[in-house]
């Protein structure tokens, strides 16, 4: 296996962690956002350099540079290939948007430090070349839930995410070799963290509850999908191929189930969470089709879901803070008259999530639906129906928030500030640009599709390198 020219992956994990530690010292709170943005920007640059080297090598798997192997138990700690390289860039971008658009009221040192820790942990999971690193990254990324201040948050999320993390740990440390049990534990971890039935309630509640921005950032990492794409699918294809259609069926039904439950959801934040988790189930279903269309669609929609949910939740949080939490779910709020730019950005993100043409969402959903119909036949119709329902939910949510008579309690509502406008607009511009040239995005993800559909990996063992199929022909 070739190496990167420098220990870029180690740096991408260490830089945010160092900045997080720096925030714990006596940094004035009004400098905390600047410091966090600087840390995330540096991380992004390092990840971009890694991506460039992966692209230059034709999508090969590259181990970290010499510094990264110094403390390893068995070979390199970190490695990157086409599957993880794009994610390594995407996640710091999402974190940058989240931090830049975060309301002042949320901006305490704890928020920024936890954001940086989540970034560090998530990047460690993506770049892991070693079971211990993978499990540590997986577990550390849920830290904001564990150290949450409210009792509700603990109840809502930690129960499920920590359980999922524990299962992943069990796989790594307890099971001795590749077996169906290993696969089952991996699948359980992926299901629990994605929010497939019956685990959906915990994940929906995590977004619907307090700590909106941080919980959204944690879940936007979608390490569960990474686990699925990297390990579960190749393992299942070898150990239990007949399991995949069932897993796909469960994901499709979960997607539809959540879309139907959205009809009963009256709280705007609950509806938003329901739609996002339902769409994540659609991605899960796309991966399990093991068709080129379905997997490519899932990889494209991963980008769309990450960007859209970041924008939607950031706008919602800004409105929540500006109105002091006074957002009604049972009547129209009429925010569009005071915040037209928030309305436009929310509308574009919502419709992109629903597959608006001119955004990457259109191509992604088209491919996803095609893959589902190819893999599941008439049963695959569940996916277009669920996506249609979700589209209706997001439009309904848009109407509830922005249409109708302006609320008397919010006459002085301020529209998007320059930092909010620029960060959210940049994220949406990415979706629009890729929407016009989807073949570019497909080209980027084609090696990753080959990896996912390629040969199965060797089973993970304690402290053994996670051997993954290298750039299948």
């Amino acid at each position, binding site marked *: 296996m070739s190496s990167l020219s420098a220990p870029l992956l180690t740096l991408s994990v260490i830089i945010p962690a160092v900045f997080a530690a720096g925030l714990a010292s006596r940094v004035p709170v009004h400098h905390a956002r600047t410091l966090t943005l600087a840390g995330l920007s540096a991380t992004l640059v390092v990840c971009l350099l890694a991506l460039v080297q992966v692209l230059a090598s034709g999508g090969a798997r590259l181990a970290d540079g010499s510094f990264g192997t110094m403390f390893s138990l068995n070979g390199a700690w970190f490695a990157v290939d086409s599957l993880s390289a794009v994610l390594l860039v995407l996640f710091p971008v999402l974190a940058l948007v989240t931090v830049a658009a975060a309301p002042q*009221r*949320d901006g305490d040192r704890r928020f920024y430090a936890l954001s940086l820790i989540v970034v560090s942990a998530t990047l460690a999971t993506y770049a892991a070349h070693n079971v211990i690193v993978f499990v540590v990254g997986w577990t550390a990324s849920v830290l904001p839930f564990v150290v949450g201040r409210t009792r*509700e948050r603990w*109840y*809502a999320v930690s*129960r499920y995410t920590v359980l999922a993390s524990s299962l992943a740990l069990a796989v790594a440390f307890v099971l001795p070799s590749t077996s169906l049990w290993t696969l089952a534990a991996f699948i359980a971890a992926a299901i629990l963290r994605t929010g497939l039935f*019956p685990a959906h*309630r*915990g994940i929906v509640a995590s977004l*619907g509850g*307090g*700590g909106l921005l*941080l919980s959204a950032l944690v879940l936007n990492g979608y390490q569960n999908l990474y686990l699925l794409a990297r390990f579960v699918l190749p393992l299942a294809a070898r150990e239990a191929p007949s399991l995949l259609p069932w897993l796909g069926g469960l994901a499709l039904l979960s997607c539809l*189930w959540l879309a*139907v*439950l959205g*009809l*009963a959801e009256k*709280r705007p*934040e609950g509806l938003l969470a329901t739609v996002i988790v339902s769409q994540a189930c659609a991605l899960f279903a796309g991966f399990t089709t093991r068709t*080129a*269309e379905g997997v*490519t669609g899932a990889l494209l929609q991963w980008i769309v879901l990450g960007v859209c949910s970041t924008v939607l939740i950031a706008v919602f949080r800004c409105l*929540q803070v500006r109105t*002091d*939490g006074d957002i009604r779910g049972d*009547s*129209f709020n009429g925010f569009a*008259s005071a915040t037209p*730019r928030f309305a*436009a*950005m929310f*509308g574009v993100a919502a*419709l992109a999530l629903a*597959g*608006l*043409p*001119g955004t990457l969402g*259109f191509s992604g959903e*088209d*491919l996803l*639906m*095609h893959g589902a*119909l190819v893999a599941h036949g008439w049963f695959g*119709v569940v996916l277009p*129906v669920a996506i*249609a329902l979700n*589209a*209706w939910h997001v*439009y*309904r949510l848009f*109407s509830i928030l922005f*249409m*109708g*008579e302006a609320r008397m309690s919010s006459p002085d509502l301020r529209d998007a500030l320059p930092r909010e*406008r620029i960060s959210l*607009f940049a994220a949406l511009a990415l979706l629009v640009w890729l929407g016009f040239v*989807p*073949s570019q995005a*497909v080209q980027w993800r084609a090696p990753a599709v080959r990896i996912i559909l390629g040969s199965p990996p060797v089973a993970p063992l304690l402290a053994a390198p996670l051997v993954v199929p290298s750039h299948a022909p």
Partner: protein
Amino acid sequence: MNLESFLSPESLLVAAVLAPGVVFLLLAFSWILGYLPAERLVARVANTTFSFCLLALAGMMFGMWQTGATSVSAGSGNWLEVHEFRIPLALFVDRLSLPLVVLTVVLVGTVAVFSRRYLHRDPGFHRFFILLHLFAFGALLVFSSASFDLLVGGWELICVTSVLLIAFFQHRAAPARNSVRVFATYRACDVGLIVGAFLLHHATGSTRYSEVFEGTWPNQTVALESGLATAIGCLLLLAAMGKSAQLPFSGWMPRAMEGPTPSSAIFYGAISVHAGAYLLLRAQPIFEASPIASGLVVFIGIATALHATLVARVCTDAKTALAYSSVSQLGIILAEIGLGLSWLAVIHIAGHAVVRTLQFLKAPSALHEYHGMHAAAGGHVQATGLHYELLLPPGLRTWLYRFSLDRGHFDTLIERLFAQPLERFAVRMKAVEQHLLPVGTHAKGSGPRE
């Protein structure tokens, strides 16, 4: 690129279709970034755009006339290609789509000119023109796409612009509520188009018209077995029923009248509602291969025409009456398509679109014109319209009046038989989940402070 290739029919077609899309992007991005151009500038940009489109189409038709071509194909390659799935990046106009492309440019341009004064100083002036350009792009994409996949893109754009313009007067609750309802109908029916396009792709290996159908319109054939043709035909019909407000989905039409009059004219009188009829005309070989599907088209068309003409007679406002008149004509157009009278349907679409646009644009001044007509006639003008009604027995007349007043009870039936049971099911399931998997309610956690 030399001048000759720049002025070729293919290049002119691409320019005419893309121009509104480019202007939309410019207007939308400049607005988001904080620049709000003057009304006069926006109106001039719109006039220039649609004049340019018209000139480009005239040039394209001149080129076709010179070479004796009956169709123009522009673009090659694929916009998106994954394994066996391809969305061709290609435009195509033939004897079916050319009249509709020209009609779209002329009527959208007319509405743009009308709207400059009609919406003068309206807070949503810029929003209207931004959406009008997006709609024009979507409609041109529907009529000039070379494949069903690309048609879906334009189809969705029409859907989005339609609902956003229904909610144009967003400070009132009714338009917002109605736009949500219309969006639900559109999305439910669009599933038919998506699955139908997939099945077509699965059966023929492509959704490109030139690969799916053999021959030139209207003498095309398709190599599909009857059962599959029936399935695909029924799915495409579902999509067309939604877009063209056919039974039982016609209830969205009066709700859509909440939008400003120019958008009602261009969407529900002229272009948008005819997109469903265009889809059926484009897929006509599939219907010819399936007597069941074509019979269904005729049945739904005639039933809708009868229903809509009854409802139009009891409407108390001009725009709703016009909307149901449109639905009635669309029913007749669908019946013509089902009977295989393709040319008649195209001529009907063109004539209906022009007349209905005029009627919609004149609707706000109907009362003024009514008084003008009375004054010109020198006094009272006798009421008209009571002809066939007088032939019916009084009991049936009363029943029909009630039936028409509730718009055939279709909205009520959909509400009671489908929407309400589904919502009740969702509420019950949520309650069951809450009971079995309690994870907290988050009433405290949803506040503004983290």
